[in-house]
């Protein structure tokens, strides 16, 4: 097929590429005839063009070569494999359903795990400048351990901008609570005070307005959520919001921008953005030059291509001023964290603007997903071998006709991979419709199947291939090994004493044990946590956030008339809502303790038990403190009553010891605590103890009083018991979740056992018939069926029970500060030979 002279090169090559060999001569002859004729009539160049047109036009199916793939006889073979696979699946609907469904559940679990991890790692990746923006951090000792903190001393930002030419811009971020009012919408909110560079560094596009408006001290930019909350579907631009900081500092702000809805995977966010200058208005004690004042974060952006190392090297110059202001805390240094890595390292940085990733997601979920997959695969292997009994004749026939072992293996592999892909599709559907919505409800992250993410499809295809391969390889090798003669003569002793199958079953049962143990342990732990005492009497305690002294006095006066109210107390902090933390010294011991400023009656209203000494006495002694037992223990004070402590450069005397209590929920450990006397001017909370049984009644009264007294401020308060509703619903969810997981696992294990037993019975059907004829009862028969599995179950128990126990204990320890210490009884023997 050489190119005839004159014919254009590329079109000819193309024609030769697509044209069938047996039509090439005649067709190209035609084209050439035209070509030569046209050279005569219209000239060479146009003829070449016409030739190209003809070549393109002729490129139609009738002229195409048949691809090698379609000609190869193996394609018919493959087609036949797929056909027989489908037929055999249709013929045994139960077992193929069990197979596909079991794998699909495991695939769905894996997709959930995948989505969860993917979501976790995708968080905040939408920020365009994440490579060049850094968060300033500092490290200091906390409880004697060097810890990184995400807050920064207020003056650092401006210093960085002035002293380093490579720092392109700096953004200081401060937060302050504010009461936001628009017409009759009044809510407690948190305002973000930022430098105008905020919206340049972080890629939060605005739906309306321009970022530059942020440099105006009187303008506010809302998040999408807040715009809807305050303005519904009206256009918020140009509307005026009043922000109230504390009781008397009020300022109107003009809405000049609304952010587009944040991407779902975000950790850094805002509700109200206002200019940083406003921070001194909101908090008059705040000074931007004070090294002891902290702001929520300082972001710097470097010029593209600059290394943070140079800036980092210059950081020690700021340490003297910082150390002096923070005395006696041990400050180790100032560092930076790239925005791109901030989220991942957020767990190690205390109080940064990002969120921490919880360990159970990173560690627990993949393990669970793998276990599920393993369980399903083992299950499938046993079932696949079992169902091959019905196809022995087919295998024999194929071998007789001329299939070698490789062909049979290929056939079964194709079948298994087909099943795996079916399972993957079903699993994806299951996941999208059932698992993910439900799981994101539990996890609190808005998860959804990323239908258009190529990684997901790659993951899915990879998973399906892997599952198909892993679970199909052994059955394929096993069934292809049979000798034709034995199959045909019917002398094949099938499925007897296969050590691999026993090992699989054993392993599968171990996994099932792990899940069952997990369900039981988590269930009991949830019960245990739910009934765990908080360390004080939360029943009959009500609280309200009053804001300041006058608020407290008005509300207190009004509520004391209520006959159900027994005691009223004021405090600056409140258990479960706000607890401070500070460095305390006693003799040569030093420790970080939780500190609460409360008044004398707080112990009575909250039902905190005083175990030694007495509550605060008199009015004048401002330096009395109460501590908890843990504090006494950690500081190893022998004689707590009367001991003097040093805290915030003042001396305090311990007058009483209270029982240990949980200031927050049970995910957190109890910490050493100190109660000091609150200054009446600093009252933030009103707490009261009411008669048992009248809580909701009094709550309604409290609320009504509040609305009457302070129509402009939203009511924040409630029953102390309701404070951790979310914690308890989390527990409840966890309970449900582990129960479901365990049920699925039991189902899978039971199916696997069923498959194995049915296979065994088919193989020994004659033996059973003879036994029966000779008068064996059903007890005898079932004993002879099950006795071989009892051993396996026993082995599985011996290995599985302790393994499961230890594994789950580790998981629980990871999540709860005080997990239930289970007895070692957790060995679940009884259902070994149930099927």
């Amino acid at each position, binding site marked *: 097929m050489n190119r*005839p002279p004159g*014919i254009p090169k590329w079109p000819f090559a193309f024609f030769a590429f697509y044209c069938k060999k047996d*039509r090439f*001569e*005649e*067709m*190209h*002859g*035609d*084209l*050439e*005839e*035209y070509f*030569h*004729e046209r050279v005569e009539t219209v000239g060479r160049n146009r003829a070449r063009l016409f030739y190209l047109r*003809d070549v393109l*036009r*002729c490129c*139609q199916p*009738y*002229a195409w070569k048949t691809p090698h793939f379609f000609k190869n006889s193996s394609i018919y073979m493959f087609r036949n494999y797929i056909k027989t696979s489908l037929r055999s699946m249709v013929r045994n609907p139960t077992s193929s359903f069990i197979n596909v469904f079991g794998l699909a559940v495991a695939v769905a679990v894996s997709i959930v795990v995948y989505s969860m991890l993917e979501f976790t790692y995708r968080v905040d990746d939408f920020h365009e400048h994440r490579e060049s923006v850094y968060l300033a951090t500092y490290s200091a000792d906390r409880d004697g351990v060097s810890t990184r903190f995400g807050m920064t001393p207020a003056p650092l930002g401006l210093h960085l901008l002035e002293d380093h030419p490579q720092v392109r811009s700096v953004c200081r971020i401060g937060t302050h609570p504010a009461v936001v009012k628009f017409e009759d919408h009044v809510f407690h909110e948190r305002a973000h005070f930022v430098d105008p560079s905020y919206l340049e560094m972080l890629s939060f596009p605005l739906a309306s307005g321009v970022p530059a408006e942020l440099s105006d001290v009187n303008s506010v930019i809302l998040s999408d959520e807040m715009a809807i909350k305050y303005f519904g579907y009206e256009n918020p631009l140009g509307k005026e919001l009043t922000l109230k900081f504390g009781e008397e500092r009020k300022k109107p702000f003009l809405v000049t921008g609304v952010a587009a809805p944040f991407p779902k995977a975000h950790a850094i966010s805002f509700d109200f953005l206002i200019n940083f200058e406003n921070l001194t208005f909101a908090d008059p004690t705040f000074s931007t030059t004070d090294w002891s004042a902290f702001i929520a974060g300082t972001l710097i952006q470097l010029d593209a291509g600059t290394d943070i190392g140079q800036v980092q090297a210059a950081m020690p110059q700021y340490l003297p001023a910082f150390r002096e202001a923070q005395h006696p805390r041990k400050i180790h240094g100032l560092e930076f964290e790239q925005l791109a890595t901030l989220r991942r390292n957020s767990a190690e940085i205390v109080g940064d603007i990002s969120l921490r990733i919880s360990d159970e997601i990173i560690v627990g979920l993949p393990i669970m997903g793998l276990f599920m997959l393993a369980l399903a695969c083992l299950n499938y292997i046993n079932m696949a071998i079992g169902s091959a009994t019905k196809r022995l004749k087919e295998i024999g026939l194929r071998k007789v006709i001329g299939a070698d072992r490789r062909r049979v293996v290929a056939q079964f592999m194709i079948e298994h991979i087909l099943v795996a892909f079916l399972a993957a599709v079903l699993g994806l559907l299951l996941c999208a419709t059932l698992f993910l919505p439900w799981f994101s409800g539990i996890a609190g992250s808005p998860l959804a199947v990323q239908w258009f993410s190529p990684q997901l499809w790659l993951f899915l295809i990879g998973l399906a291939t892997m599952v198909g391969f892993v679970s199909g390889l052994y059955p394929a090798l096993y069934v292809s090994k049979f000798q034709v003669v034995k199959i045909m003569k019917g002398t094949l002793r099938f499925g007897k004493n296969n050590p691999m199958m026993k090992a699989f079953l054993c392993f599968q049962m171990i996994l099932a044990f792990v899940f069952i143990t997990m369900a039981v342990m988590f269930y009991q732990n949830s019960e245990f946590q739910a009934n765990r005492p908080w360390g004080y009497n939360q029943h009959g305690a009500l609280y309200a956030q009053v804001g300041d002294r006058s608020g407290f006095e008005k509300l207190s006066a009004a509520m004391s008339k209520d006959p159900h109210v027994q005691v009223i107390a004021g405090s600056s902090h409140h258990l479960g809502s706000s607890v401070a933390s500070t460095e305390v010294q006693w003799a040569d011991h030093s420790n970080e303790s939780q500190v609460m400023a409360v008044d004398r009656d707080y112990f009575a209203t909250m039902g905190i038990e005083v175990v030694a000494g007495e509550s605060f006495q008199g009015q004048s002694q401002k330096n009395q403190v109460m501590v908890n037992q843990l504090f006494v223990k950690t500081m190893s004070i022998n004689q707590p009553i009367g001991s003097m402590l040093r805290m915030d450069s003042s001396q305090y005397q311990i007058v009483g010891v209270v029982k240990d209590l949980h200031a927050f929920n049970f995910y957190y450990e109890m910490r050493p605590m100190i109660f000091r006397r609150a200054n009446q001017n600093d009252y933030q909370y009103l707490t009261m103890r009411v008669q048992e049984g009248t809580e909701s009644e009094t709550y309604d009264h409290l609320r009504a009083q509040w609305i009457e007294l302070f129509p402009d401020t939203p009511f924040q308060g409630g029953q102390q018991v309701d404070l951790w509703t979310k914690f308890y619903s989390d527990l409840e969810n966890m309970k449900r979740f582990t129960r479901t997981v365990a049920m699925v696992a039991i189902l899978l294990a039971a199916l696997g056992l069923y498959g194995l037993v049915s296979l065994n019975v088919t193989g020994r059907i004659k033996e059973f018939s003879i036994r029966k004829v000779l008068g064996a009862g059903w007890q005898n028969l079932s004993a002879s069926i099950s006795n071989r599995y009892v051993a396996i179950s026993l082995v599985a128990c011996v290995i599985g029970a302790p393994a499961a126990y230890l594994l789950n204990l580790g998981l629980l320890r990871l999540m709860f500060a005080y997990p239930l210490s289970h007895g070692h009884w957790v060995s679940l023997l009884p259902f070994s030979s149930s099927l």
Partner: protein
Amino acid sequence: MGRSQIGEFEELVLLTVGVLYDDAYAVAIAKELEKQSGRSIAVSAVHKSLYRLEEKGMLDSRLGDPQAKRGGKRKRLFTISPYGKKAMEESFDLRSRLRNQIPDLALRFNS
């Protein structure tokens, strides 16, 4: 006898093959059709119809002699097969039958 599906263009090609008896190959057919119908005919369209008609069994074909103007390549010469003749006639019959059934009234326009 099953219905012999045959498209309009295919029918034209079939007829032309008959017209050009013994020298019916793609280029000649295309030219003849161009001449007779006044339409511009692409040789690829003729190829397509010829191969389809051959597949349907309405045309037979053989390779002719090499020719210099074709770069020494042979051409495929087509002739109508008996089945092709039958299909052609059936189609022609159908048309004339239908034509004859049209009442004169339907074609009288100037009254």
